[in-house]
């Protein structure tokens, strides 16, 4: 492969490929014995051996990753099959009663599916006006200074662990709802939706802002030069151009809401019923994920109930798949973009997504009005229920008046109104997130002491410290990283740099994407069934480390792949054209500029692992142990789970709850801020 002969031939080949029919002098100089290669003593054999070994290692990493991904999917599916055989798939999905421990047991997941959809839908209705409004504000209206503060702040908030949100929801939100609406209990659908809306805010805002910011400057200039106001430019050119990216952000938010376990489980009340009437937001509700979160720990291996839980996980996978497919089509539209796509390497065939895209576009444009009306109605309903009839009526009247008057109002006044709405949305977002942080930091600081950080828990965690939980979390994260990082990065390098991207690679990529969007509780179920029960690891550090590693593996593969793909092809060609081998090219030319991207992905994965509850609650953790683990097969304490149990099961432990929440928050947000600083630093310094 690396003989100089090959290089010589290759360069002539390139010349004729580029279509120039130059007669040119023969370029076989190196071939001739009279002209030995310059520095002809290059250690080719040794380089070749090393090259082969590295390629084998990378291949091994990708093989492990692929087998794992396929194995998890197959394991979940095969364990779900018995329940479909027993009650029938149709009955499993449409049955109205979920009572797996009843006599006789019933396995109807319809209320759970409805619960998942209702919670997600209302959450989106609440979050969309706020997050899209603030995205537009940050991207287009805010001064560069304001933007440079708001943008990283909001990204940082995306890292707050869901159990911390759940804790806030439990102690503040549900109490507030109970008091203000005079309810028997604040654990309701509305509480879950509000909490999910808050959790989705940072993600949707941040990704939409990126999409708006990515709209080429020329579009703005073209519109402004025609005498359009800033608002006209935004609403008619910039936002439509960013439409695909914004849709992708919304889908991402939906995915997060559907897959969320801990926060929903803590505030929704979890009765497996369909609200009566269907819009009764004060009804308790139960989602698919919460069902797994509640029941996985106490199920007998191999029972019908056990398989029914796998059936629930299977449904979650299907939902993830649907969300992913919509996202792929939409993101396909981003990449094909406004510019004409010339199908080059497809041999004249138009790729499927280019055929789907126009159809989707037609559907979108037809659905825009009804979708707006439905969304508007939902928002109105949310306002009606949360702020009362008067507020809803006022807003409805204002909207109608605005729509009627729009044609008469000057574009200047429209701009003022629009800008104030955006600013209002941003203020609300900042206020909400500020209140949460303030509440946890102020109350948490009261609990922090030397004893709290270095002592063992006493009196069910009401007293003493959380040292074993801190250490346990660090062990878990370190193990997960040790497993996922080498495999994930190796697999990504192999997939991007050593394969041509054929059908096989596409299938693998779809599998990785599917797992990437899969709710963490599904990983928890898999880890529990496979490592804890089947392999007899028991509830142990090792089982938790592997489960967490599997959870972050898809993220690491994806972010590494993206970082590698961002390195321009010209770099590789330049290096290869100088006679560098593939690994030399990858290690010296491709990886260095991709490193910040890879690191950012890895650090975000660490943050996610540190805050993760659902994946470890059945695999690794116990609520209280006074000892640190001495072997990988010992169970451990962990911060997120400790907070979860303290908050839900231990009365009168408020101080230590806040203390644990603060420690967890600082840990995870600290990890995230390293990633953000790193990324911003390299974004400023790396240019090509």
């Amino acid at each position, binding site marked *: 492969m690396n003989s100089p002969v090959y290089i010589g031939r290759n360069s002539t080949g390139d010349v004729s490929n580029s279509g120039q029919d130059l007669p040119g002098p023969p370029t076989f100089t190196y071939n001739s014995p009279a002209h030995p290669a310059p520095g002809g003593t290059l250690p080719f054999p040794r380089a070749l051996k090393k090259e082969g070994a590295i390629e084998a290692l990378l291949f091994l990493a990708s093989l492990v990753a692929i087998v794992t991904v396929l194995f998890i999917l197959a394991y979940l599916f095969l364990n779900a099959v018995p329940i479909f055989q027993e009650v029938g798939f149709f009955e499993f999905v449409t049955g109205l009663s979920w009572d797996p421990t009843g006599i006789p047991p019933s396995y109807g997941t319809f209320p759970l599916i409805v619960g998942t959809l209702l919670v997600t839908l209302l959450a989106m209705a609440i979050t969309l006006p706020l997050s899209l409004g603030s995205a537009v504000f940050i991207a287009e209206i805010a001064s*560069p200074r304001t933007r440079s503060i708001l943008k990283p702040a909001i990204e940082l908030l995306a890292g707050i662990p869901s159990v911390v949100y759940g804790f806030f929801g439990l102690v503040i939100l549900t109490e507030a709802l109970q008091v203000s609406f005079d309810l028997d209990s604040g654990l309701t659908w509305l509480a879950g939706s509000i909490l999910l809306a808050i959790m989705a805010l940072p993600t949707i805002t941040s990704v939409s802002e990126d999409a708006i910011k990515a709209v*080429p400057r*020329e*579009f*703005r*200039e*073209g*519109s*402004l*030069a*025609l*005498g*359009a*106001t800033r608002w*006209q430019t935004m609403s*008619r*050119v910039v936002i*439509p*151009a960013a439409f695909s990216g914004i849709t992708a952000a919304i889908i991402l938010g939906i995915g997060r809401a559907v897959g969320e376990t801990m926060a929903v489980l803590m505030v929704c009340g979890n009765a497996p019923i369909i609200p009566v009437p269907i819009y009764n937001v004060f009804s308790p509700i139960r989602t698919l994920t919460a069902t797994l979160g509640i029941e996985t720990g106490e199920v007998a291996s191999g029972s019908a109930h056990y398989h029914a839980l796998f059936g629930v996980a299977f449904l979650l996978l299907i939902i993830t798949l649907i969300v992913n497919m919509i996202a792929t089509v939409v993101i396909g539209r981003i990449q094909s*973009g*406004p*510019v*004409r796509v010339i199908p080059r390497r497809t041999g004249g065939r138009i790729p499927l997504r280019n055929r789907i895209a126009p159809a989707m576009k037609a559907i979108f444009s037809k659905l825009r009005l009804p979708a707006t009306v439905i969304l508007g109605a939902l928002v109105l309903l949310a306002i009606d229920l949360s702020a009362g009839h008067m507020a809803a009526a006022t807003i409805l009247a204002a909207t109608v008046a605005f729509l009627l008057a729009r*044609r008469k109002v000057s*574009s200047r006044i429209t701009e003022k109104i629009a800008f104030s709405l955006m600013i209002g949305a941003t203020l609300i977002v900042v206020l909400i997130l500020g209140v949460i942080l303030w509440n946890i930091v102020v109350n948490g600081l009261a609990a922090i002491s030397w004893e709290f950080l270095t002592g063992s828990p006493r009196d069910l965690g009401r007293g003493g410290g959380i040292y074993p939980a801190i250490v346990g979390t660090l062990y878990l994260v370190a193990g997960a990283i040790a497993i996922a990082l080498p495999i994930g990065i190796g697999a990504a390098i192999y997939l991007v740099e050593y394969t041509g991207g054929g059908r096989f690679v596409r299938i693998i990529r779809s599998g990785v994407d599917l797992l990437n969007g899969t709710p963490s509780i599904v990983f928890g179920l898999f880890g529990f069934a496979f490592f804890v029960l089947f392999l007899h690891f028991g509830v142990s550090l090792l089982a938790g480390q592997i489960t967490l590693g599997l959870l972050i593996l898809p993220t690491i593969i994806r972010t590494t792949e993206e970082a590698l793909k961002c390195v321009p092809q010209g770099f590789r060609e330049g290096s290869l054209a100088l006679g560098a081998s593939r690994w030399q090219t990858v290690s010296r030319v491709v990886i260095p500029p991709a490193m910040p991207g890879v690191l950012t992905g890895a650090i975000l994965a660490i943050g996610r692992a540190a805050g993760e509850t659902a994946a470890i609650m059945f695999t690794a953790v116990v609520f209280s142990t006074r000892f640190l683990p001495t072997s990988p097969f010992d169970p451990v304490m962990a911060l997120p789970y400790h907070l979860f149990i303290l908050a839900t099961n231990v009365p009168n432990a408020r101080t230590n709850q806040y203390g644990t929440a603060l420690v967890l928050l600082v840990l995870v947000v600290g990890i995230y801020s390293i990633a953000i600083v790193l990324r911003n630093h390299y974004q400023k310094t790396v240019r090509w």
Partner: protein
Amino acid sequence: MEKSPSIITTKNLNLWYGEKQALADITMEVERNRVTALIGPSGCGKSTLIRVFNRMNDLIDTCRVEGSVLIDDQDIYHPAADVVSIRKKVGMVFQKPNPFPKSVYENVAYGPRIHGIRERGELDRIVEVSLRDAALWNEVKDRLHDPAGGLSGGQQQRLCIARCLAVEPEIILMDEPCSALDPIATAKIENLIDILKRSYTVVIVTHNMQQAARVSDFTGFMYLGKLIEFGETTRIFEKPKEELTANYVTGRFG
């Protein structure tokens, strides 16, 4: 004929980007219904100057302007001046064609729509007239509702001109409109400029001296942020007064 012959007048115009002065003491007049070309080596400030005329420089935070720029005797940098109506009156065609990611029709209808025209028939009429004036109608009349991104580079640039005409400006600024185009597309744009000057005032920035000589009535030569020489195109090219200008137009530097 009460209007004065000059439509744009600048007096002692200075412009800074932060600390760096980009335009120094520029005083010039642009005549109505004529084509005025600005030439000069890269970085001499000609694009900056043309962006002064419709205040596109406002988009750059560090940009600071001193002196006066009068369009129809109104100071466009007066604090009370309305930037939106200035830009409506002074259209611009950019270096790189920048059609919006919309259909051909929607690109042209965009301007009239934002300025309050809603009747479909009226919009149809404006779109057709503008596309005809931009010499593009025959090429796109059967695909008005296809994405503008599917047109060739030259067609996209003429679409941008049509988009500009649809707003009925008085002045059209062109910032190196042919630099991204092939010779045939360039020839079409140059013919178009010749026709446009009957109804519009055109200010064009160009790198290409032959182009300036072919299309313009007046030429200004700029160097290092200063307007070195300004006059009728034939005179600038045949009998330049300044040595710098002479060197540049004869190709001895630049």
